[in-house]
């Protein structure tokens, strides 16, 4: 059987699918797993830029599907980690250039040589999403703690549940702001879980270093273990391998004094409202 095919999707755009894919992929590779990422967002590819591999692309997914090159020729190796490859999307074609059957065939060819195949799904629920879903053994739904993203995540989960084959779905809540959650101005993790009722894979805090890392093309999980978001993605990768990693504490920033001040400014019960 070989690799597990994990599709990362969200419904809504801009919640951090591509960032999550890149960071989880790097984190898995750092655990010495053999990993390949497939960018399924044909026409709007971005995983290459987030991973910092955009200058080394020769062929792409559509070239492979249409037989212009061998699968191996299109795969870009990330030299910073032991065993990580990117299969980039085509930039000048549209989603209909690839079919769900093509995706199944492609991943079946990759399965024997890898342990994890991560597919970065495009936003939306149409062709591109269908392509990304077709070969999936598991799905990770990425959402943000805000109503539009949670609504779209619910739609995606509904669509996956409506599939004939049962595909396990888990949730990553990205860009959580502990301070806003504490003030009651952002949906908490338990609010989101109550609405979506799916298994929680991880919570990733809002982190400016994420933007800086994608500016540089160096996913946060590559080196910066102190970065809060990087640590969360590392934890998510370890959970994917089956390790029991406790959920990250979204501790509010600030020292003892600020926390004390908050204690008096807010009711005692709302000190740990994040989970």
């Amino acid at each position, binding site marked *: 059987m070989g690799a597990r095919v994990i599709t990362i999707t969200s419904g809504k755009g801009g919640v951090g699918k591509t960032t999550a894919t890149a960071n989880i992929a790097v984190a898995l590779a750092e655990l010495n797993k053999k990993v390949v990422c497939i960018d399924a967002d044909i026409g709007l590819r971005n995983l290459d830029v987030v991973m910092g591999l955009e200058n080394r692309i020769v062929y792409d997914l559509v070239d492979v599907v249409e037989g212009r090159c061998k699968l191996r020729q299109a795969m870009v190796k990330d030299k910073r980690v032991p065993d990580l490859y990117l299969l980039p999307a085509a930039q000048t074609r549209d989603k209909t250039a690839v079919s769900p059957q093509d995706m199944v065939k492609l991943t079946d060819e990759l399965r024997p040589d890898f342990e994890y195949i991560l597919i970065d799904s495009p936003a939306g629920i149409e062709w591109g999403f269908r392509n990304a879903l077709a070969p999936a053994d598991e799905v990770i739904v990425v959402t943000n703690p805000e*109503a539009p993203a949670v609504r779209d995540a619910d739609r995606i989960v509904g669509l996956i*549940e409506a599939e004939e084959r049962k595909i396990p779905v888990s949730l990553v809540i990205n860009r959580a702001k502990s301070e806003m959650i504490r003030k*009651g101005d*952002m*949906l908490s993790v338990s*609010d989101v879980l109550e609405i979506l009722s*799916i298994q929680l894979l991880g919570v990733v805090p809002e982190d400016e270093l994420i933007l800086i890392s994608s500016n540089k093309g160096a996913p946060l999980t590559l080196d910066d273990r102190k970065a809060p978001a990087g640590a969360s993605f590392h934890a998510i990768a370890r959970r994917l391998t089956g390790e029991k990693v406790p959920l990250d504490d979204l501790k509010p920033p600030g020292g003892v004094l600020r926390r004390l001040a908050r204690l008096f*400014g807010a009711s005692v019960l709302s000190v740990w409202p994040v989970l």
Partner: protein
Amino acid sequence: MASLFDRFLGRKEPSSAQIAKERLKLVLVTDRSNLSPDQIRAMQREIIEVIKRYIEIDELQVQISVEQREREHYLVADIPLQRNRSYGALEYPDSPPTAPDSRGRSKSNKPLIDEPPVSSEDTIPHQPPS
């Protein structure tokens, strides 16, 4: 944000996250069921009509909602029957007040609105798209 003083008096405005959560739950009723809020109200009216043909009910207290347990959904109807009608004349001088029910719903007999609202916890089952 409510001040400490407000909190002391138990005055609490819902936080924006609570508002978001309630709005989200309501919009998901429509999303998941493919029923518009109008259709849901119409369904409630029709259910009440059918039941009234057979039994006297306290129409103003009827609550029909969809409850979510995990990712399964249940249509749940709370339909209080009209009391002391078929038995007739048994009356107590000091009838105890009606016990509040487990959900702490208001037992006021005055209609607050014309038709039973969709409760804010309503959600309606996913229907696989055809």
